[in-house]
């Protein structure tokens, strides 16, 4: 199994006595669109928080490309290749759209000019700023945000803010992209639009995408494989048809 990108081994976390996530075993292969679904409070976002280093797992561990990342800081995990978006949008609200993306580009190896270079405006600074801005504009074009590049990010409509968050995460050049409810609050047209973009991301950027979503149309239309969580336990696992028709899953969502 050489093509496994993300592997979690018995991953779990408890806050005090509450076991938010327990014994999660995921195997996300390269280039896969993997869905994480479940009712509210199932622990999906907590899984994301563990994978990005916000919360330290109390049991188990996880590997990206065979490298153990448990216990690393958020910055280090991002540099290793996991980027995420947030369920409640967390943009840099006082910055323009293009600058938001440029913050994402900040850590790329080709932009390594130090603070000293910038303070004294050495030629290198200008070169890098120019390349960075061009690259940010390229990324914005993918998401159809190029026209809005000089607007403040807080003035964008909701759907575009979500897209900008994905653009910003993409700018960090991740191997694995975690999308936390990317379609929440979008109208059906925007959701369709987003689905095309997500597919394009996987195909053009060789990305592996792990996403949380409540919109079952979105999940079944997009994902190759899903895992259903409920109260921190894994309920079902498999292709969307299999997993969503699992009697346990139906009971969790609808009741007996």
């Amino acid at each position: 199994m050489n093509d496994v990108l993300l592997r979690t081994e018995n991953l779990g976390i408890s806050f005090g006595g509450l076991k938010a996530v327990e014994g999660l075993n995921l195997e996300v292969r390269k280039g896969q669109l993997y869905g994480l679904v479940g009712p509210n409070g199932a622990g999906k976002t907590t899984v994301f928080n563990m994978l990005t280093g916000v919360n330290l797992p109390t049991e188990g561990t996880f590997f990206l490309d065979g490298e153990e990342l448990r216990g690393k800081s958020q910055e280090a995990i991002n540099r290793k290749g996991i980027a995420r978006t947030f369920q409640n949008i967390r943009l840099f609200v006082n910055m323009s759209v293009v600058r938001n993306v440029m913050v994402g580009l900040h850590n790329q190896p080709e932009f390594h000019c130090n603070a000293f270079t910038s303070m004294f405006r050495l030629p290198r600074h200008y070169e890098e700023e120019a390349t960075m801005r061009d690259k940010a504009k390229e990324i914005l074009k993918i998401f159809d945000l190029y026209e809005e590049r000089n607007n403040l990010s807080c003035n964008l409509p909701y759907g575009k803010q979500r897209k900008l968050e994905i653009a910003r995460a993409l700018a960090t050049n991740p191997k694995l992209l975690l999308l936390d409810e990317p379609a929440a609050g979008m109208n059906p047209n925007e959701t369709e639009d987003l689905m095309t973009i997500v597919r394009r991301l996987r195909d053009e950027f060789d990305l592996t995408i792990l996403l949380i979503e409540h919109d079952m149309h979105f999940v079944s239309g997009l994902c190759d494989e899903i895992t259903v969580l409920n109260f921190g336990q894994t309920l079902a696992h498999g292709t969307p048809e299999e997993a969503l028709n699992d009697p346990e899953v139906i009971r969790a969502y609808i009741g007996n």
Partner: protein
Amino acid sequence: MKTLKYFKKQFAVKHFISYFVLIGVILVMAVLSATGALSRSAYSTLTKIGYSMILAVSLNLVVGFLGELSLGHAGFMCVGAYIGCFIFNLLEPVTGSGILTLIIAMLSGGVSAAIFGFIIGVPALRLRGDYLAICTLAFGEIVRNVFKNLPFFGGAKGLNTGLFDRTTLLFVTLVTVLVVLAIVQNLIRSKHGRAITAIRDNEIAARAMGVNVTYYKLLVFVLSAFAAGLSGVLYGKAVGIIRQDNFSYNYSIEILVMVVLGGIGSMNGSLIAATIITAVTVFLQNPPPAIRDALNLGDDTLAIVKTIAYAVILILIIMYNNAPVFAGLREKLSIKKLFAKFKKKDPGNISADEAKWDRITTKIEMDEVLRVDVKKREGELTDPDKPERGAK
């Protein structure tokens, strides 16, 4: 050449206006001092304005861009003043009391303050908001009292450093203002500045984007403390004797008032506010005898008024900026709007002349508005897949 092209493209006069003004001020001062038009008190006031500007700009970096409230800026200044001037005194027999000694003293004062900035930066990684403010406040008071009790820094009597040549000191101060301003602005308008602003806007998201929060917080604290240390040495050489009670809590607040009055996050504002506040302070401390006699006041009654005035200014500005009651007023008085009004005459503003209602320009505008609306609706009908702008 890519570099030059980018520079031209990104060049905006408004980014450089403060430099031009400062260089202008330096030239005017050079002419004035060459003709001997500046009095003794003018030199001391101008130097005071200069080092206040350095303090305000460096505090604005912490408060306005990193978004952390620091109430210990006078503490950093205190460290710089004592250690820088102490080294000045040590070096004086060797290198003389020229500009070289002053520069060495300033650098050593700045570096020692920067070390303390690093020490304060470490808790700043864990604390934020009010708690960090209390921590920095305590730092300022502790530093002051430590220097008070060290005998080789002169103890409670203060460290005697001797006055520096007034003219040279004024120009060194003004050039330092220029350099500090350039460094701080260059830092802000770079990828590092974006990272710092990102931390202010949303620390969690900044971390998730790979911004090294530890590094940038320490960088900002160290840089701002360094600048405060420089201004401490300039202060020491301007007043001749350093007394620890000048670096009290009140002075930190005075610097904060400059930042808040000028606008948090606005460097030009900080420069202007530093000038105003310092000028007012000097005026209140030494009011012209005529005014003092007319009001029948004691020697330092007005100096006490100053402290109250700062508190009132701070409260009023914060209320004005945040209270919902003033929302309408803020809208009306916003500088952007005033500028827009100033720049282009609004063609729609025809209330003064009623006959103009029939003029064609207005009609065309209305038509245009309508046409855009129709076009948009048609677009919607023909292309239902395209998401509507502004839809939620």
